[in-house]
């Protein structure tokens, strides 16, 4: 097969359980591989890393040579899809109640809450011998955490799950199909969810709780305040990012450990290896497989010219398996040294919530691992979600045997 169909083959749902052979083909075909629709694919570690750090690379969809006519230049976008200096301004404001330098202890302080949520979920599992890791654990855990952090009522989950599904579907990498309807539904969901979150925030005005929405609307310094539109986009971004990605990290963790029982035994004997194991998961089975970028100028890379305005797809999960960067990249090794993976991206858009995701995955897997010794996968590979960019199992049914 020709390499100009790689993106189509990667996004083909049949590839979801194991896209890694296609990634190997991509790396083999060269650092830069043009697709039939003009898009460029980049799948090698050093080239991806260089592009992630290149200030001439845009994340703004309006930088395309042929921008979406429905996207106007004055429309507010989340900082994930904005370039500096606007990206920096909004990300800094969003960071104020979340991390250093203004809230350095915030994530550490959530350790107790996350443990509490985890214990509640474990209790609900009780003595059941058959569970779905996704529905029973890996999805409800980060949802509960992000709801508490942002200040969103947990019982509204069915509403925002529907919006979130539509938004995430519309943000998948292009597959050449007609995406008009998908994009329209995504825009509608984004608007609805934004309104819902701004309404919630409005209720906290002058009546703040210990949540981020409260912090945003009660910011005393007018120069540090988000506008309504900025607040809507930022809150939507945080709510979606907070629960669409960590679910995959936890689920992939359980799946990978059950496929590597020797490593599972190691981790059970030495929980001190967990932080390293989570880093290795972020490399070996990352929740985010691809990101799209657009050059703001013709960019020379490894003997190719990436033309201004033509979209690039950076296949982060392929860079994570690049043998030019990682020794035996297809081996899952929780004690791997020098593991600077691309699981959280890199450069100025390096994952905002990474420190929280790490903590959630460490606590969740730490709680599950003792019980996984006698567990078996009911379905391997499990059924996957449709999205190729945010890749993860839809369900992960496992059987827990009563200890003899």
């Amino acid at each position: 097969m020709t390499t100009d169909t790689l993106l189509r083959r990667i996004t083909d749902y049949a590839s979801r359980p194991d896209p890694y052979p296609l990634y190997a083909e991509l790396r083999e075909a060269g650092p830069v591989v043009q697709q039939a629709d003009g898009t460029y694919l980049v799948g090698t570690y050093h080239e991806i890393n260089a592009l992630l750090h290149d200030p001439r690379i845009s994340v703004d969809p309006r930088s395309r040579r042929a921008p979406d006519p429905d996207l106007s230049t004055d429309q507010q976008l989340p900082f994930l899809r904005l370039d500096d200096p606007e990206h920096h301004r909004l990300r800094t404001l969003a960071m104020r109640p979340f991390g250093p330098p203004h809230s350095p202890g915030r994530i550490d302080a959530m350790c107790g809450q996350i443990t509490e949520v985890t214990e509640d979920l474990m209790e609900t599992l009780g003595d059941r011998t058959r569970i779905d890791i996704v529905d029973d654990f890996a999805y409800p855990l980060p949802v509960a955490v992000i709801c508490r952090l942002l200040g969103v009522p947990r019982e509204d989950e069915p509403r925002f799950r529907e919006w979130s599904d539509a938004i995430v579907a519309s943000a998948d990498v292009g597959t050449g199909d007609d995406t008009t309807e998908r994009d329209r539904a995504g825009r509608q969901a984004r608007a609805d969810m934004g309104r819902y979150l701004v309404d919630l925030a409005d209720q906290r005005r002058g009546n703040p709780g210990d949540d981020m929405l409260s912090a945003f609307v009660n910011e005393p310094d007018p120069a540090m305040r988000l506008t309504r539109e900025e607040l809507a986009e930022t809150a939507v971004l945080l709510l979606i990012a907070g629960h669409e990605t960590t679910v995959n990290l936890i689920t992939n963790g359980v799946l990978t450990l059950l496929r590597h029982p020797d490593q599972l035994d190691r981790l059970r004997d030495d929980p001190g290896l967990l932080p390293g194991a989570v880093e290795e998961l972020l490399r070996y089975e990352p929740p985010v497989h691809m990101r799209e970028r657009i050059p703001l100028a013709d960019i020379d890379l490894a003997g190719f010219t990436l033309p201004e305005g033509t979209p690039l797809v950076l296949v982060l999960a392929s860079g994570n398996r690049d043998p030019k960067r990682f020794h035996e990249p297809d081996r899952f090794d929780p004690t791997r040294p020098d593991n600077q993976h691309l699981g959280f991206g890199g450069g100025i858009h390096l994952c905002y919530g990474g420190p929280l995701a790490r903590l959630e995955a460490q606590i969740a897997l730490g709680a599950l691992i003792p019980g996984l010794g006698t567990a078996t996968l009911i379905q391997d590979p499990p059924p996957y979600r449709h999205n190729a960019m945010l890749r993860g199992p839809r369900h992960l049914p496992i059987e827990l045997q009563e200890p003899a």
Partner: protein
Amino acid sequence: MADDLRAGRIVIVGASLAGLRAAETLREEGFTGSLTVVGDELRPPYDRPPLSKQVLLGQAAADATELPMRRDPDAHWRLGATATGLDPLGKRVMLADGDSLPFDRLLIATGTRARPWPNAEEAALDGVLTLRTWDDAGRLAERLAAGPQRVLVIGGGFTGSEIASACRERGLEVTVTERGPAPLVGALGGTLSKLAAGMQRAHGVDLRCGVTVTALRGDGNGRFTGADLSDGSHVAADVCVVALGAVRNVEWLKDAGLAAGPRGIACDGGCRAFDMYGIVTDDVFVAGDVSRFPHPLFEYQLLSLEHWGNAVAQAEVAAHNMVNPGPLRRPHLALPTFWSSQFGLNIKSVGVPTFSDQIVLAQGSLEARRLAVVYGYRGRVTAAVTVNMAKSLEYYQHLIETAAPFPPAPGAADRTLAAELPLPSDVPDPKGLSHGPLVALTGHLPDRRLTMVRPG
């Protein structure tokens, strides 16, 4: 042969960052012989960057900056012992207490010390301090905590500027004197030094540039009371910090026949010391602030760096080369990098900013206090300095390593019109970096990356 190198006796003189990292790496590389680390301070290896920042702000105690060990180097520690000489033929290090340590291979990592005030009598006044060791930092922190009326900082380099920043953060009046036209000018050149001067003044520093201190004054009880400046003025203060840079600790080597001088000890790209005739030794290695080493990206001029990152990288290379035979040895090619935090700014640098003839403001702006300045020399990128924009550094590092053309290609999203206008870099002549003889090695070209580090 390799097995021989993994046994025997290794002595490391210098028990700070470079000495410790080298000791750890030796063990990591499989060295099983005896390892002795000599340090003239009594404390185990500690970290210095916090001494001019968190310690002065009272956020950390001076004695809480001990360096974490990556592994137990299983070394015999001779702390509080001063090396006084080296017998290169008899292969022994002499100590002040009369003892001498035989070695098969030696690593010199004696670093630097603070340059003292030249007038010993004035330097002895109560209230006149320098800042290099944890002891110094503890004393200075104590003085600052006592709430002096005014602190005088002599020297507007990085250490002096960080001390002034800490004083202002503590609400103390501070005067900085700098012989040059602005603080940090020697390291960063004219444009950024103007930003530094503006920040200092905006934060309430009494900044006096283009002047020198001619005398330190004391009262009848030997207490420091103020200083006379070359412009005829007088600054009344009760604490004075002399921040005039560093002196390399090489005096103990004066009879050792090594290429050692005020700029440090010259070594080759593999950290092996040269002797006074320019002949490379094979049993004496050098790492850290006390070394001068050739770098292919800077025309093989011998660089002397006082950077944390260089101490670590060079110590690792030196240790590797001490226990591996010739063909398996590695060159020390790490790009110089450093950082500073002062007046709310995070300043980071990669490359050698003084090795430049032009600069360009490639991203951001002075007004936003967030920018990337790129330095070029004869049409190629040689350095970059970011202010509150550290995540951009990696991109510029790549440009430097690949000898990319200067000015850098346009297209950055946060590029302003200023990026169209390269300015003179306004730093001391780059030849000022070249101290003593140039040592040319093999035929590397600056645009060729001849080594590739692969994991495993």
